[in-house]
Every structure is written in structure tokens, then in C-alpha cells.
């Protein structure tokens, strides 16, 4: 996992200003905010809106439209399991159940100790070596029970 900076309005304003004047700047700005701070807090919305001359509602609308953006920090690790058809055809559903059971959380939730967030992803383009997953951005294919357990164990270290 990579460490994320704590929210800092000044640093955020600087980051946002660097994109000013760019065509269609909103998505790149939101992506960089999330990359830097790990999430997009409500406090970021008026800053972005002011710089791009948008309403807060417009920015909020974009933040909430896209699955990638999170308004709250995630756990220290993020496990994403592919839930799409090619992974289903090779036992993806059973692996998804196993992950929920092992971690004691449902998809979209973070474990109580803040260790791990479990999420669904719909296709990583690894459909020829399915089932697949990512752990903190690292891609893993040909997943089975053993490999999944090892990934989960990794996050406990």
C-alpha cells in the first residue's frame, strides 16, 4: 500500500490551480486529489468549483457519478475482485463469497479494524486468465482459494 497525505486545503488548492485552463480539467483534478489524499472530502468540492467556475452541485454530481471516486478514506489495503462474466465462468462467485466470509465484510465495506476495503470491479481485461483481482493496485490472475487466502494474509502483515 502507498501512504496517502492527510487533507490539507492549501496543498489541495495548489494542486487544483495547476490544472486551470486545461480543457475538461475536472476529472484529472479529482483523480489527482484522490491519488494524493486517498479520497475526495466534501471540503474539496467548493475549492474545485471555484477554480473551474462551476457550481458545487455540478462538482458533487461528478464525484458521485463515477465508481472510482470515494468520499471517505478506504482501509489501509484495498482488495478488488472482478465480478464480471469471464471471472464468473471460472468460479468467481465462490471466491467472492469466500472473501466476504474471511474478511467479515460485504462488498463495498471496510473491515472494522480499518485494515482492508473489499470492492467489486467489473472487468480488469484479464478474462483469458480469470478469475482476477487487484490488491492495492497490483494485478493478480488465475485466482483460486489458496491464492485469495494468501492475498488476504498479506494485508495482515
Amino acid at each position, binding site marked *: 500500500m502507498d501512504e496517502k497525505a492527510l487533507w490539507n486545503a492549501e496543498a489541495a488548492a495548489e494542486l487544483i490551480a495547476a490544472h486551470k485552463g486545461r*480543457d*475538461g*480539467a*475536472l*476529472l*484529472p483534478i*479529482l*483523480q489527482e486529489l484522490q491519488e494524493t489524499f486517498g479520497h475526495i472530502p466534501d471540503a474539496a468540492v467548493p475549492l474545485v468549483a471555484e477554480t*473551474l467556475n462551476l457550481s458545487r452541485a*455540478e462538482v458533487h*454530481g*461528478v464525484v458521485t*457519478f*463515477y*465508481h*472510482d*471516486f470515494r468520499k471517505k478514506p478506504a482501509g489501509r489495503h484495498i482488495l478488488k475482485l472482478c465480478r*464480471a*462474466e*469471464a*471471472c*464468473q*465462468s*471460472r468460479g468467481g462467485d465462490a471466491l467472492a463469497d469466500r472473501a466476504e466470509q474471511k474478511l467479515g465484510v460485504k462488498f463495498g465495506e471496510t473491515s472494522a479494524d480499518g485494515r482492508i476495503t473489499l470492492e467489486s*470491479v*467489473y*472487468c*480488469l*481485461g*484479464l*478474462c*483469458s*486468465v*480469470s478469475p*482476477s483481482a487487484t490488491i492495492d*493496485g497490483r*494485478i*493478480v*490472475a*488465475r485466482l483460486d482459494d489458496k491464492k485469495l487466502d494468501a492475498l488476504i494474509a498479506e494485508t495482515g502483515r
Partner: protein
Amino acid sequence: MSALRIYVPGDAAAVACGADEIAAAIGALAAKRKVDVEIVRNGSRGMHWLEPMLEVTTAKGRIAYGPVGLDDVDSVFAAMLASGGEHELRIGVPEEHPFLKRQTRLTFARCGIVDPRSLDDYRAHGGYQGLMGALKAPHSIVEEVTQSGLRGRGGAGFPTGIKWKTVAETKAAQKYIVCNADEGDSGTFADRMIMEGDPFVLIEGMTIAGIAVGATKGYVYIRSEYPHAIAVMNDAIAAARKGGMLGGSVAGSQFAFDLEVRVGAGAYVCGEETSLLESLEGKRGEVRAKPPLPAHQGLFGLPTVINNVLSFAAVPIILEKGAAFYKHFGMGRSRGTMPIQLAGNIKYAGLYETAFGVTLGELVDDIGGGTASGRPVRAVQVGGPLGAYFPRALFDTPFDYEAFAKRDGLIGHGGVVVFDDTVDMAKQARFAMEFCAVESCGKCTPCRIGSARGVETVDKIRRGEAREQNVTVLKDLCNTMKFGSLCALGGFTPYPVMSALTHFPEDFGMTPRLQAAE
């Protein structure tokens, strides 16, 4: 003596199977043994059941080994040192492998062979010949592409030349070329492989499009789930710019063209072209009503060519070898080749590029070798999450836009996902509706509400609740979604649902239909 050249794919499918660790292990081993080694991170050849597939350059050509695990590195390295010597994982010359030998690789001619980040390597393997031809006769590019019969490879199959002609004839101070690299369909990975294995072919294709229609700026919109493709594309664009192939004067000509990568944010619907344009503009990825067409009012309201990765990547060879050469392949109104992606529960999974006309049965049984699980094939979903499920009875369907449409299916982006006999088709129908509900942009009612009601209705059928009546409701919902939705997400979700219901009624607790006596 020159360095021993070893290829370890940097393609995400190989990396996800451990290629990075293997490349590092080989580097360490070579250093320890003091052997001069050059490790090239090539793309994938597309034989994914053999990934990570390593290759070594020998006097007799390249020799491949795979699938190589970390435990095999020592012995494979020793075999490589013995100029491609024997090993239980030795595959031999990759081009001689039946899976590759039977293909017609036009779009994927260089993928897996070249160093994807090297402009020189691209040129050495015939790259930029198409652009050179285009620069000699810029006014005949559109006609050449039209004559080739190339149709949009993203799924809609619209003639590429006609789209380009519309933009070329629309007057505007600024026009755009946009590449749809938001490859979200499960079972597809051809765009990813091109971007990771031969990115310059996409750059060349987009550059030719820019010259053809008078656009000076292009965007490649890549989904965020493809970090490897994003990295390679960015490096290749920088290399092309440095080499004078992008920028104020493309290859020393009077034409200017430049490219920029933009990254998506996890919305499947942004693979729909108007939704993608909204997203590029920094808005919610909501679908636009058509008309106006993007060719008239596209990105930022200006004339825009928007095509799939594979459409642009097919253009250089058309300009290099001529429309007649490309058109010669294929059947009916489906001309040229299609990079077909064999995925899911299939023994020989990977990328298979071939002329249109190959049958589904040949692809699944013959080329794909049946299921990976060894159980009988029961259903095959063609064309992604919005594509129909085909039973064995329809395996004689040839890969052709019209032939699939005639059987209530679609070839889409060329993904083929195989399921064995453990599949529950009612569950798959439910998933199709659920996926639509999760990914709907919310703009039109049939898609937004229809999909939610669809999930509930399939659930009722599966529970056996007023089964006959609910099947009628489901059919009615599908009809409304198909004809009332703004885009293909709501409009095509009925394909997997209705095909599951039609061909596998027993999974819904219905009486199987009588088999036609033949």
C-alpha cells in the same frame, strides 16, 4: 559477443501471472552468472494459457518457453543459454505454433514481437508505412478507408469511412479525434493488448485520421482499470513526439497533430461514445441524445471522429497495402479481420485474429479446445455483457455482424466467454439486469428503472412466484428497454436476458422447447 536478448512480456495478463517477478529473477540470475542479458518487456503474443511466455533470440529465430513459473527460472535460463535448448516448457518457434499459424494477423502483426516503447523497433517492423502513403495523398485517405469496408470495431459496426467523411466535410476551426479505449466488456482485452504491445499502431491510425479530416488534436480515453496500458501509451506518445511523428509537423509534413491520454473513472457507460465525450469534457458520463451526431457536434460541441482502438489500429495497414488488400478478407458486409478474444472457461484462451466468417463452433471447440474445466460447453456469451448467450445448437453461426444479428445476437467488440454445464442461466440473466442497474447513467427511464424491475422479476421467476406471468412481464420489460433506451446499455441488456430465457428455459423452471428435428 552481443547480449543475450530475452523477452518477458509486460502485458497485464502476463504480469498478473507473475511476469514482473520473473523478469527480476532473470536479471538477478544473469548478474550472478555474469551473463550479458538484455531483457525486453514485449507485449503478449496472445497465447494466454502459456503466459508468462518467455522468448530468447537465437540464430534460428526466437524460441519460446511457457508458462514459466518462478521455480522454472533457473532451468529455463540454462536452456536459453544453450541457444534455445530443450526444456519441458519449450514451445519452439512461436510463429510455428498452430494457434498462431492459423491466424491472419493484420492489426496484431507486431503485437508481442516488438518492444512497445521503441519507435525504432516499430519502424523496423514496417511501422509508419501507412502514414507515409497517407501523406503522399492526403485527400484520398477517406476514400481508401471507405473502400476497405472497415466497420467500427467497438461493436456498432458503423462504416468508418463514412464517419470520417462526415467530419471532413463539416467546417470548423477545431476538430477532434477521440479514441474510445474504455474497453469495459467482460471477455475483451484486445484494446488493452494493442496499447500494451503495439501502441504506435494506434498513434499512427489516429494521426492518419487527423490528417484525413483536418483535426490537430486527439484524445485517447483509457479506462482506469488499465494502468499498464495507460503507462505504455503515455511513453509511446512521448517517444512519437520526440521522434517528430507527433507535434507541429508530423514527419516533417505541413500537418500538425498531437495526442493526450485521459483516464476514465470506473463507469462502464463511458464506453458509449456520447457518454465518453461528456466524461472527457469533465462532466457526469450521461448519454447524449442523437442527433446531433458527434461527427457534427462532438467533443466541446465540435466535429469529432470517435472510434474504437481496433478501428484506428486497422487503418495503417489499409493505407499501406491498399483498400483492396484489406477488403479481400472477410465475408458479406464484414470485411477484413477481427481480433477475437477467447475468454472465460476455455482451454486455449487468448487473442485470435482471423478473417470474418469463422464459425462460433470452430472458435470454441476447435481453436479454443473446449472448456478449461474439461466439462461440456453449455453456453457462450459473445459480445460482452450486452451480448447474447449462444447454445451449442447455434454453433454454426459465422462471425459476421449480420449473421449474429439474424440470430438475435451481436459480435460487439469480439469477446467470446465460454461457460461449462455448471452455469445457471437464470442467474446469468439476473446478473445482466443487475449490471445494467449498477452501471446505468440514469438519464433514460427504460434503462434506469427497467433494469431494477428486471432484477426483481428474474428473482420472482427463480423463486417460482407466478412464473408464467412474470416471464411475460420480463419479456415486456425487455421489449421496452430494447426500443425505449437512449443507448446500447439499456437497449442491449435484453440480449443476454432474452437469449438465456429462449435457449435455456429449463433454468427458469420452464419447459424446454422442442428441439427442431434435423
